[in-house]
């Protein structure tokens, strides 16, 4: 499937969305296939653990399917979807009162010895914890820009913020993260 560097194709998404709103579950299925990685990755970085990210990803797509009729089409499908996932993650955390994320990083792909692997794993866990421990408003900006490589303008549209606010929050998030990582080094 064609797309930009991140594999995105908003025009094809709009075409599929139109079919899905006409009642084609297959068109929606194709949209799910196209966006599931980004949605899951955002949830994973926002929440810090895979089980919660999996639950939220499923909920996001089912919510999107049921809300299709109400989608006004003023933004792109991905903007709308990413807004849903960020809001879902934040409400999930509020409901579950998670104070300490339970990181479970992907197995490190390394040829290093067992000791080095353990250190790498601990560093990765500390990083996941530090990101998931950022205040919610900073974390959403950080994850969308740093992990998903979305532009300031895209992040601003998704979170309905100004670009200046996005830049400010990103800088604060990075500074806090760096301070946290300093404590681990």
């Amino acid at each position, binding site marked *: *499937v*064609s*797309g*930009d560097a991140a594999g995105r*194709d908003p*025009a*094809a998404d709009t*075409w*599929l969305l139109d*079919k899905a709103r*006409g*009642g*084609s*579950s*297959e*068109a*929606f*299925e*194709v949209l*799910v*296939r196209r966006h*599931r*990685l980004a949605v*899951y*990755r955002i949830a*994973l970085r926002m929440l810090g653990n*895979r089980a919660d990210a*999996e639950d939220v*990803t*499923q909920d996001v*797509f*089912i919510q999107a*399917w049921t809300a299709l009729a109400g989608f006004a089409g003023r933004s792109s499908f991905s903007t709308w979807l990413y807004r849903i996932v960020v809001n879902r993650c934040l409400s999930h955390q509020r409901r579950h009162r998670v104070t300490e994320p339970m990181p479970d*990083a*992907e197995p490190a*792909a390394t040829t290093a010895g067992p000791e080095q692997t353990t250190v790498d794993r601990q*560093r*990765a866990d*500390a*990083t*996941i914890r*530090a*990101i998931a*421990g*950022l205040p919610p408003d900073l974390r959403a900006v950080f994850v969308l820009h*740093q*992990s998903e490589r979305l532009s300031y303008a895209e992040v601003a549209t998704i979170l309905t913020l100004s670009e200046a606010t996005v830049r400010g929050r*990103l*800088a*604060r998030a*990075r*500074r*806090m*993260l*760096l*301070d*946290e*990582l*300093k404590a681990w*080094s």
Partner: protein
Amino acid sequence: MVMTGPDRLPCGADVDDLINQVADGDAAHRTPHQDGCPHCQAALAEYQRLWAPVQDLTEQHVAVPDGILDHVIRAIRTAGEQAGYGLLRTPLGLTRIADRVVAVTARISAERVAGVRAALAHEHPPSREQPEAVAGVQGGSAAIRITLAVTYGHDLVALADRIRATVAARIRTVTGLEPVEITIIIDDVLEPLG
């Protein structure tokens, strides 16, 4: 988390600017001031070291658990969808292949043809006035209907022929069924991707 450390280095450089430079992957693109400033060079090196695990995490491959797609698809598929089956007779018994399998195979192979932006092999729900059995299978034969959005500027007749040949070959290989008719509907043309 407590924010610590000064906002500026002894040379006057803004700490946040340096952190952003590292986080944006631009640490190597030093300004003329940074080229001659030991404070900035030391800070950039330190931030790069501290930031490395974040960079690693960003570049880490994330695999989506298989169960997510299954769960969502089960939830959205309409209950009334009846599956038809193609039949392949072998000396040891019958193999039944659902029309849905044929439709998915057709869709995925069509999507991979250059110029195709999105493909559907099941465009309309079966309850509509003109039900389109997208992948009707009967015995060992399959008739497939594919609806497409393609990139503007392609020779559409040649593109349809390429899609038909690609899909037919794939259906034969994957399912063993014989595609007797492949209807291609070019539903829309989209601007080329920037």
